[in-house]
């Protein structure tokens, strides 16, 4: 099939303003959008800049807006999106070059909410016991690949008013509901802020955007409930 990729370009060393450029080429309906972008980069215009690595939806490098929706370019086939494809960087993040956005603040957010296991008690000789039911409490949020699709889809995040965004809350949730963790108090304090969970307006864009199917809005709701009624 003949396809036309219209890409939002930003080449700060060449010109100050972003612009759109269209590339036409032959592709298979079963090709990924990422295959199309690679084709452009490798054979048409080597200046095109994007991040990608595993190319099958586990590393989280290539979240971008594809025909207006946040998706992973490596998990989106051309036959799903048609012959006219518009590709733009994630919204709400600073664009550095073409489809590459600044992820440093995104990863900093994980630090703010202490998205790591806290337990300074001496560990047992073997594993800490945890039932399958207890493990299931955070099973969904432990799937997060940190691609930013949820955060970039959140209207409360877009204005840049300091909201940590859904991905950071998902990361926190994963530990709030882990029976092995003893650090909830400090973590909850960070979440119980205007820029924490309370900026969430329950719009559900995040859940729709998640490429691994995490129930993001529900996870945020569970954190809100835990803060309100102290249920962890």
């Amino acid at each position, binding site marked *: 099939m003949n396809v036309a990729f219209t890409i939002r370009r930003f*080449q*700060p*060393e*060449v010109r100050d303003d972003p612009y759109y450029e269209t590339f036409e080429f032959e592709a298979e309906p*079963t090709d*990924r959008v990422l295959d199309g972008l690679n084709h452009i*980069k*490798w054979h048409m*215009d*080597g*200046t095109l*800049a994007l*991040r*990608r*690595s*595993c*190319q*099958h*939806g*586990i*590393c*989280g*490098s290539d979240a971008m807006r594809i025909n207006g929706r946040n998706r992973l370019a490596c998990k989106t*086939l051309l*036959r799903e999106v048609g012959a006219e494809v518009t590709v733009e960087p994630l919204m709400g993040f600073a664009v*550095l*070059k*073409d489809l*590459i956005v600044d*992820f*440093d603040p995104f*990863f900093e957010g*994980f*630090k703010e909410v202490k*998205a*790591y*296991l*806290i*337990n300074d008690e001496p*560990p047992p000789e*073997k*594993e*800490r*016991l*945890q*039932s*399958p039911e*207890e*493990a299931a409490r*955070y*099973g969904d949020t*432990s*799937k*997060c*690949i*940190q691609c930013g699709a949820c955060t970039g889809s959140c209207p409360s995040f877009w204005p840049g008013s300091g909201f940590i965004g859904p991905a950071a809350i998902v990361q926190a949730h994963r*530990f709030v509901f*882990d029976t*092995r*963790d003893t650090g909830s108090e400090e973590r909850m304090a960070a979440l119980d802020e205007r820029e924490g969970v309370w900026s969430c307006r329950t719009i559900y864009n995040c859940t729709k955007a998640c490429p691994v199917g995490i129930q993001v809005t529900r996870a945020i709701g569970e954190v809100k409930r835990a803060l309100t009624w102290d249920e962890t």
Partner: protein
Amino acid sequence: MARVHTYDALVVGAGGAGLMASLYLGRHPDVRTAVVSKLYPTRSHTGAAQGGIGASLGNMDPGGDRPEWHTYDTVKGSDYLGDQDAIEVMCQDAPEVVYELEHMGLPFSRTEDGRIAQRRFGGHTKDFGEEAVRRSCYAASRTGHAILQTLYQQCVRHDVKFFNEFHVVDLLIEDDTCRGVVALELATGELHVFRAKAVLLATGGHGRVWEITSNAVTLTGDGLALVARKGLPLEDLEFYQFHPTGIYRMGILITEGVRGEGGILRNSEGDRFMEEYAPNMKDLASRDVVSRAIYKEIRAGRGIDGKRYVHLDATHLGREVIEKKLTEIADFCRTYLGIDPVDEPMPVQPTAHYAMGGIPTNIRGEVMADETGRVVRGLYAAGEAACVSVHGANRLGTNSLLDLVVFGRRSGDAMAGYCANADLLPGGEEDAEPAREELEAIRTREEGERAADIRTEMQELMMHNVSVFRTGELLEEAQETMADLFERSRHIVVDDKGSEFNLDLTEAWETKGMVELAQVITECALNRTESRGAHSREDFPKRNDEEWLKHTFAYRRDGRIDIAYKPVTITRFEPKERKY
């Protein structure tokens, strides 16, 4: 101008091995440590591993499990090329590191009584081969993802210093002593000199040398290329594992678990051809055996529609098994093939998967300067980039994740010990000059070829001539064509003439390194005139212990490749014929 940083220990690469080493270095506050990675850490390919991490916890089997059995299985799986002292260390350390990961918060799947759940995996047995044992500790089918996330989270907790999206382009080594690296900051195009007493190369694999691969597009063997350019040896590069079931054309892995649950391979005539090649184990024979069988079927014209793939049929397993136990695979099939494995068979072909060979190290992660075992002071390697050698000629499933954490940890400890006594060697911005010259030559060149064209030719050549089946003739042909590709790779041009995120430039640099590496792989494969594990020579179909029970050490020197040998360490398991 280049910026100069000074640390004690520097870790290159932020996958499982690099992060584990960093955590261990972080326990020594007096050792200033930094991690340099061309990706954000959680983008590393450790995250793609599905099946599990092997450890003899014995949580699921009444008779328990033992490190000695795990050792035996690994030795046998390696076709007796693995060094048995190193394998013993790995299998002995395994339970402890798995518990350690659990204590760090790893979300393991659990047994009903709350312990770490374990499952069967190819080649893992009890009582030295008697029957299958459940040894693979797993987190659903995302074990690698869980390990990578957990290690990164703990690094964040312990304030490990990261330089993300810094691409290492030179190693500073003089008189067999390492004194740092040079890295390109992708965001700015600036070169940075990192002075350090000890450097760990944890740069991952090199599956991108082949056309069809399960490996990330970033797995270009950078660490190996850097080492080879310094005249240092690479070990056992002829041993490269092809996983039998990659999705046709894409190479994405379909886990062994599908066949474990009862999936069957069929050719264009609908025949279950594995019955002929491995009458006992059939579709569950070891990876090298199944890959060779698929290749033979395709070559005999029994690929589906005459093409280069066969069918993996799971339609008889029923919706429940597929939805519950093979969730990720069902998802891959629907996403990439638009088929439901409940109703239709999956098109598969062997896919380049894992390097058994790499940068030679001892069990402390110290890089060897030659086949006598003399070390390069201050230089360490771990993970897939390294060759300890615990996988020998063929790796067992679940041993790659184990290798990462065991030897990542040991390297971190060894580096901390070394840093306490070593002096920081001189270094400065002038150290960046050779790398700058090389990169500038590419960036400013006006005439030549695109990296993608050279890379594609190399990948196709390696896939046809240097993959599952090899012959002297095919390898000599590859050697000749590769020499031409090498010349052409000296004249790559790029479109991007800028500095910021010039990934056109880094891809060109990677391509040069991959061609150099592919030359060494081809040479090693041509040189080894026997068949062992993943290295299969049609013109030398038998394993030959008399002449070839030894490791290959290959050196790039003045445009030629020299080969030397190192004996295999055998402690308690004498080589036997390998039967499953």
